[in-house]
């Protein structure tokens, strides 16, 4: 995932309502829009060449939506949404970010991770957002991503920012970690399991 376009949030804001507001942005895999305040009763709707993408109850800060095709317009449903205007460009140009090239799991899903234990979803500005857990010896933690169809069985790719990697088990998109010693873990990505004989279409040798 790479940040390809950015308009930083400034001090101005614009109200987004049901009227579609045209948006001219480079084609990317994810779009971030900046909200100065949460909009719990509203839904952000982005219309692209491939259809609509929706995000209900966006929180304050960067709201990220996965994209397919070029963005055409933007509107809100269920109530108006306040968006930050671009720094130095005024409210007509909403603050936004566009990323290209997503992994197996879209960026918006990582940002929606639920974490059971001491942790957060971490991101540096427009960089990738990934769930992070801090575990002490003997502790168990869990990270659950929203449901998402994957092309096959996957294994988690974990990084130990501190300490050693704990035991990890992935069921669906729920990751359970059991630590033998203090560690700080980042769930970086998932990778498709390599084919083994059980999955192979080649004839059995037995």
């Amino acid at each position, binding site marked *: 995932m790479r940040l390809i376009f950015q308009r930083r949030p400034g001090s101005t804001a614009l109200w987004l309502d049901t009227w579609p507001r045209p948006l001219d942005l480079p084609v990317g895999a994810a779009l971030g829009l900046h909200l100065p305040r949460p909009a719990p009763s509203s839904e952000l709707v982005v219309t692209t060449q491939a259809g609509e993408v929706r995000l209900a109850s966006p929180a304050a800060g960067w709201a990220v939506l996965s994209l397919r095709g070029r963005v055409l317009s933007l509107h809100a449903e269920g109530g108006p949404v306040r968006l930050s205007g671009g720094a130095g460009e005024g409210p007509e140009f909403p603050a936004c970010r566009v990323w290209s090239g997503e992994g197996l799991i879209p960026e918006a899903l990582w940002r929606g991770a639920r974490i059971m234990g001491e942790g957060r979803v971490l991101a540096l500005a427009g960089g990738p957002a990934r769930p*992070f857990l801090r575990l002490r010896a003997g502790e168990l933690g869990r990270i659950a991503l929203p449901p998402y169809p994957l092309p096959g069985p996957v294994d988690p790719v974990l990084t130990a920012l501190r300490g*050693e990697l704990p035991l990890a088990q992935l069921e669906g998109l729920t990751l359970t970690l059991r630590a033998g010693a203090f560690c700080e873990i980042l769930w970086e990505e998932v990778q498709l399991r390599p084919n083994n004989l059980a999955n192979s279409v080649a004839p059995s040798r037995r």
Partner: protein
Amino acid sequence: MGMPERILVIIPSPECGGAERQTMQVARGMARMGAEVIAVADPSILPGLTPLAEAVTLYAAPIAFDAGVEISAMRARQRQGLAPLLALLRADTALICLGLPNEGVGAMQALHAAEIRMLAMTHLVRRDGVMGETDRAALRGVRASWASVSAPASRRLEAMLRLPPGAVATVPNGLAPGGSIPRTARGGRPILLSIGRLDVRKGATLAPQLAAAITPARLLMAGRGPLAGVLTGVPGLELLGQVNDVPALLAKADAFLLASDHEGCPLSVLEAAAAGCPILATVAALEAWPEPARFARFVLRDASHIAAVFAETLRDTEGTTVRVAEARQVAAAWDEAAMIRRTAFLLAATCA
């Protein structure tokens, strides 16, 4: 929070060397990720940092560590130098570049007073290094997250700061991707190349004897430092001063030498590895890598031993070729993107 947008990079160094270059490399990477990155350094080193800044905004503050100043006065100077800027800049988190672990204690106190979380990245943790009781007392209560550039250095830092095992993160240095320069066809007198500050730590005092010992080969030294004056005019030794195109220099050398008595994770080793230049180094200089004997030849800090290993490097072409191939893989595996990504998440974790 966990999602910082405005990052402060504090560089309280008295000079612009490898640690500062690496810090600016990370700062540029974070700016490319979309963060607003502001670097603060002493006015004396700003000219060296300016060409490395790109989208990073530079500010000057009188914060350079000076070993000649009494330690509590040094801390006060850094605190007073940084405090007005911190109030102005309102950063979400800070990365502080520490040549040695105690070089930025005053700056860390200023960050703590301004309620800015920080990642203290230590580049050198000497085997004989100690953290003075007054420094440790000054750091008490300062909420800092620590990291260093190699696993052995991290373990030493934990011992020095009396932190639990695993508390110090490790972020190995990484090399920016760049076009490799073809090795120049060698002929004539072989070249042994040293890159780094001309000081005792890097082994520059060995140069006069080494130049004599490897004759008729030439000893080339790139870099500046306090021993430059002493080494000027030594027969067989060529001082190159500050060299910007290091890959081109490595491409024409027959071997690269790093005779340091301690190092963090030297970028010059990665640059030599990427350039396919055979590496001769002390064990201490290569402690960041798990199996350095696979890609380098070890030398003692002794001119005649270095000369003997250099001669073996030229003679044993098969052994040298195997090591050079290993070294290229090491350079490819330790990449800049991984270093920046890891630092970015560690910084974000300071806000979690």
